[in-house]
């Protein structure tokens, strides 16, 4: 991190930035995650699911992404961001998968991730629920106490451990903006010593089972409760 940068530097935006457009892109991102998840079925090969997801993004004019499209099955859900999946993984009848996309619509970045489960494995089901629960617990504490990025992720690590998971700190939050946010700040939110402002950051939670080869992921923009209807 550049220590001479101030919060306003880390939270700068580009000329095309528009809160309205960012929220609309958030909606588009959540919608397509749901559509991809609904189309994934046991018996699919992961690579085919990724191709399918890209097709669905292309139909919505969002094939361009600020990062690659990830649909990860089973053991590949433990992989960290950017890591290549093991090839040929087939989704089982009792299995877990995650989606992580960063689609760009025109000039605005989206980012979203979620985890889904088939079958009746209680630990897989709990992983998907807990990734989301840790996200919201951390987000609510940020709202209540104005946690810094550092404190927010320190809390998330503790919360994950309390629930029996290991938090992957390779995925520890980042900026989102008009494309590309990377020219403003490309590092983790977990390094920030100030309270991140709403709608400018993404809170990401990737947990791994302590002994079994699967994980779960949830991410969304850092926003107040009104953006997360019950």
């Amino acid at each position, binding site marked *: 991190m550049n220590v001479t940068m101030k919060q306003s530097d880390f939270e700068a935006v580009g000329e095309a930035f528009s809160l309205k457009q960012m929220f609309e892109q958030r909606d588009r991102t959540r919608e397509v995650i749901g559509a991809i998840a609904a189309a994934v079925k046991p018996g699919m090969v992961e690579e085919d699911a990724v191709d399918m997801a890209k097709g669905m993004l*292309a139909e919505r004019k969002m094939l*361009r992404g600020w*990062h*690659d499209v990830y649909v990860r099955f089973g053991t590949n859900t433990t992989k960290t961001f*950017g890591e290549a999946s093991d090839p040929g993984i087939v989704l089982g009848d009792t299995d877990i998968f995650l989606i992580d996309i960063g689609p*760009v619509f025109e000039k605005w970045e989206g980012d979203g991730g979620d985890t889904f489960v088939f079958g009746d494995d209680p630990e897989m089901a709990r992983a998907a629920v807990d990734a989301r629960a840790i996200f919201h617990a951390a987000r609510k504490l940020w709202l209540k106490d104005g946690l810094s990025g550092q404190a927010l992720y320190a809390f998330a690590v503790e919360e994950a451990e309390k629930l029996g998971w290991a938090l992957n700190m390779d995925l520890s939050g980042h900026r989102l903006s008009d494309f*590309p946010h990377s*020219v403003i700040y490309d590092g983790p939110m977990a390094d920030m010593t100030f309270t991140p402002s709403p709608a400018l950051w993404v809170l990401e939670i990737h947990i791994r089972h302590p002994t079994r080869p699967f994980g779960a992921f949830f991410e969304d923009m850092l926003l107040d409760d009104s953006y997360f209807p019950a």
Partner: protein
Amino acid sequence: MGASSALRFEIQVAPSSCPDDASAIPTRGATRIRAQDGQTLLRALQAANAPILSVCGGQASCGACRVRIETDDLADLTPAGRVEGALLDCLDDPLPGHRLACQVVLTPALSGLRLTLAP
């Protein structure tokens, strides 16, 4: 008006046995870059401090490293693959010479490849 010479490049690809040298040599028409056999065009341009952006890390996802290959040199390149082609098709103002620098792997046979960074 044509692209500034600062945005025009000619790639010289050394065999893999030669020592690494990513120096950029300005010439009248274009900046000549020495690259290594097997390097992507993106890596070669970045190593020579060319003003090219890569957001997705070479995954053919962001389109930020789109370059325009000189028409006469296009036939020397392996055609764009399915993923690269699909992304190029969805970017604004597509042109026939457009390629993603992250997907072009350089070989000595491509020495002399000419391109422009401006889309």
